[in-house]
């Protein structure tokens, strides 16, 4: 496998313009002869489907939800970055580019990131024109805030619902195209497999989640906008249905999977309350501006927090990182929390939680001011936990949040399978080893609105696309495989539910391949994952039939893929024998606890190629060149 990023030559700031000029165009009248299938209708998928339909392509879009408006992009709270420099505080495309490369701990492509920073400006223009009600100043111009420790205010926001408003903007654009008959929308259809014909991706097979029907769909190109795989940890801030199936199927059909071990942990989530827990809820990181994080000094001190005197509390972030204290970066504060809990000093019923205490802030600025700043977050916390954070400290714990890894794509967002594209969180491209706050929305929309609709034309203009339909033998083969898999699951009639397997896998992954990783832990995971998988395929039970709406079958199919994918993630974590960004190998740390990168051996993208069932995949490397941002060590001491 050759990993050719197809990076245009020339200075980084000219690459995209040059590439757009070099790309082949398709005559407007001919565009309607091409059909593109878009799987997933979140920010990336909806934006891409709408933009391509507008250009004149036939588009069919697929979602497993009942409506495109439900995709999990909707849950992003904080905001979206754009290098507009509206605040006149010295921001620029160069600065956003620089911050993103550095924030990604030098594991992303400069060319891609520069393009992202460039089109970030168009995104805001586009969204405002669509009627997205961003926050405004009294003068009527757009408001910005500083986010995630950035030194400039470049984050645009719509209250705490920025993701929702941007998704609804893309959904509106998509609705217009669906209403005009230019996009055919398939709801409640889950992708089961991609179909390659002569090495080129020509379609997908789906399962109708209401009737159970397995159906084939052909296209001239396929776009996967199917999000991340954070649910491999079972508990995460992802939505319940988020899964790896689409990207993992693509991987099994020849698309390289890049950097699967780059998974981001968010430090401020509401901790697990018991075994019944189904998901973790994220609390905005802004809470750390006023809250102080602590745990009891004594192991096993389970007095209620107000009974623990000041001198028996350990404000561990303030102690370990005096200059950043409670505002230390996501990965550092996450790991510190895990450390104190592993020592047995965690709080709450499960012992996996730390206090986020507002009493000092309330004493300083008054309860009213705190209510004004965080009122709705406090309400949400109280709704979920039943505790009043004005009176008793909040309990927080880190949770899996975003996955930087994904399908390997070139500069055109095409995977190693010709015709198969991946956008948004589903690809690996722009965030390197760590994503900055308010950058996920930016990347999803950049890919969907401004990059893919151009680059896909270049592919379609030159690709060898014979006329095909869904009667082709490859479609029948993929349909049969999907049906066989379902039949196998339905015939197992064992004694455990798919949720119990998923939970078992998630606990193992969180424990051994989660926030902090080491060789022996990863190897342990690698030996246990196949055992869980084996039991799954012999002791699973799914009631009902495949020919109806069957929620436990849906879960089982997704869990089956997680059980294979988890091993890939672990392999990647094992072989990336360095710490970088969110990937924290306990063997490679600076004495101060900061991640120790190994640029000599690991300044590359690791892309894994599938070799077959139970065979270790092959790890390919794409070397990363840094011509504009110089390799440097992050330090937050």
């Amino acid at each position, binding site marked *: 496998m050759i990993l050719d990023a197809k990076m245009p030559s020339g200075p980084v700031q000219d690459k995209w313009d040059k590439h757009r000029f070099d790309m082949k165009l398709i005559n407007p009248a001919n565009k309607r002869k091409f059909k593109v299938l878009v799987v997933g209708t979140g920010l990336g998928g909806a934006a891409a489907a709408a933009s391509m339909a507008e250009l004149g392509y036939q588009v069919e879009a697929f979602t497993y939800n009942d409506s495109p408006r439900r995709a999990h992009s909707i849950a992003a709270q904080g905001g979206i970055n754009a290098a507009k420099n509206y605040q006149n505080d010295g921001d620029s495309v160069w600065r956003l580019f620089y911050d993103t490369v550095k924030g990604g701990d030098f594991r992303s492509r400069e060319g891609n990131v520069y393009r992202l920073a460039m089109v970030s400006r168009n995104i805001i223009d586009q969204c*405002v024109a669509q009627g997205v009600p961003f926050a405004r100043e009294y003068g009527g111009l757009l408001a910005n805030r500083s986010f995630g420790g950035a030194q400039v205010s470049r984050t645009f926001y719509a209250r705490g619902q920025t993701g929702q408003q941007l998704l609804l903007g893309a959904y509106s654009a998509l609705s217009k195209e669906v209403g005009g008959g230019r996009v055919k929308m398939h709801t409640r259809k889950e992708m089961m497999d991609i179909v390659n014909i002569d090495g080129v991706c020509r379609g997908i097979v789906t399962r109708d989640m209401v009737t159970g029907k397995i159906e084939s769909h052909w296209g001239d190109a396929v776009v996967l906008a199917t999000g991340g795989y954070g649910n491999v940890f079972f508990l995460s801030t992802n939505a319940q249905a988020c899964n790896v199936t689409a990207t993992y199927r693509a991987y099994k059909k020849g698309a390289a999977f890049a950097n699967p071990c780059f998974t981001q942990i968010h430090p401020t989530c509401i901790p697990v309350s018991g075994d019944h827990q189904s998901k973790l809820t994220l609390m905005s990181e802004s809470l750390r501006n006023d809250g102080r994080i602590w745990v009891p000094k004594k192991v096993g001190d389970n007095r209620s927090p107000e009974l623990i005197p000041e001198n028996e509390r350990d404000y561990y972030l303030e102690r370990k990182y005096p200059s950043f204290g409670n505002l230390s970066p996501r990965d550092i504060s996450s790991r510190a929390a895990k450390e104190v809990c592993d020592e047995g000093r965690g709080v709450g019923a499960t012992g996996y939680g730390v206090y986020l205490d507002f009493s000092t802030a309330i004493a300083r600025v008054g309860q009213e001011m705190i209510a004004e700043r965080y009122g709705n977050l406090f309400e949400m916390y109280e709704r979920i936990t039943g505790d009043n954070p004005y009176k008793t400290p909040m309990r927080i714990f880190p949770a899996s949040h975003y996955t930087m890894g994904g399908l390997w794509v070139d500069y055109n967002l095409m995977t190693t399978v010709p015709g198969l594209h991946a956008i948004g969180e589903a690809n690996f491209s722009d965030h390197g080893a760590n994503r900055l706050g308010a950058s996920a929305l930016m990347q999803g929309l950049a890919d969907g609105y401004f990059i893919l609709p151009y680059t896909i034309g270049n592919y379609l203009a030159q690709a060898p696309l014979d006329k095909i339909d869904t009667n082709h033998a490859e479609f029948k083969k993929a349909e049969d495989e999907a049906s066989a898999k379902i039949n196998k699951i339905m015939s197992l009639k064992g004694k455990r539910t798919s949720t119990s397997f998923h939970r078992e896998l998630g606990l193992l992954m969180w424990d051994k391949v989660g926030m902090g990783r080491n060789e022996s832990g990863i190897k342990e995971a690698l030996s246990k994952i196949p055992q869980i998988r084996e039991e799954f395929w012999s002791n699973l039970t799914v009631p009902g039939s495949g020919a109806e709406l069957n929620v436990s079958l849906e879960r089982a199919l997704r869990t089956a893929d997680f059980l294979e994918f988890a091993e890939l993630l672990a392999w990647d974590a094992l072989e990336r024998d360095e710490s970088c960004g969110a990937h924290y190998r306990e063997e490679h740390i600076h004495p101060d606890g900061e991640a120790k990168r190994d640029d000599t051996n690991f300044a590359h993208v690791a892309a894994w190629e599938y070799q077959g069932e139970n065979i270790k995949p092959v790890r390919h490397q794409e070397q990363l060149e840094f011509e504009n941002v110089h390799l440097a060590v992050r330090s937050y001491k």
Partner: protein
Amino acid sequence: MKLKLNIWRQKNAKTDGKMTSYQLNHVEEDMSFLEMLDILNEDLILKGDDPVAFDHDCREGICGACSMTINGTPHGPEKETTTCQLHMRKFKDGQTINIEPFRAKAFPVIKDLVVDRNAFDRIMQKGGYISVRTGQAQDANNIPISKKNADLAMDAAACIGCGACVAACPNGAAMLFVSAKVNQFALLPQGQIERKERVIGMVNQMEAEGFGACTNHFECEAACPKSISVKFIAKLNTEYLKATLTKNSF
């Protein structure tokens, strides 16, 4: 906690459904309502029974997928809260809870508590957008918008499209949903060009889908997890009247 659940069970759109009782003996008050149903479903699966189907996804109150009526109130008893954010500590030990799907002609039941809400998507397709070609927008700050109007537009835009308004309305009306989208765009300068076509298109589609008419019960606002105000419905009435009377004028 011990609970008795009466749940609407319906195999598919073609068969009749009925209320079925279940007893749950180990409910913890820290569970969310959906986690309580998860527990029930795990039990049902292990017994070889069909688990209760319900729509859900983000479980943090923003995707709008969850759709069930709890003791006659969509999303249950807690104000401004979706079912996924409702926790069992709001219920009493020994209580009986009736769980039914969202009811309206325009939301046919697919299975158990799962209903088809694509009618909302079809309404959106008739004008719930501002036409702007990708990449052709002017600089965002060339369109100043007063903070007041931007905030009001955001109040309307906060709708999560869950359909609780329809489910709560004794008439099965979708006026709150439609009015939220119509008003969001009517309040913004970008929305003016297509203003009349939008309101006429969306309202006509709303009627074609079989949603009822508003008779000002205001149950929709009470059930709305985002507290979208009924004042938008009042505004929709006049928007629609004006648009109908002047659509052919210049």
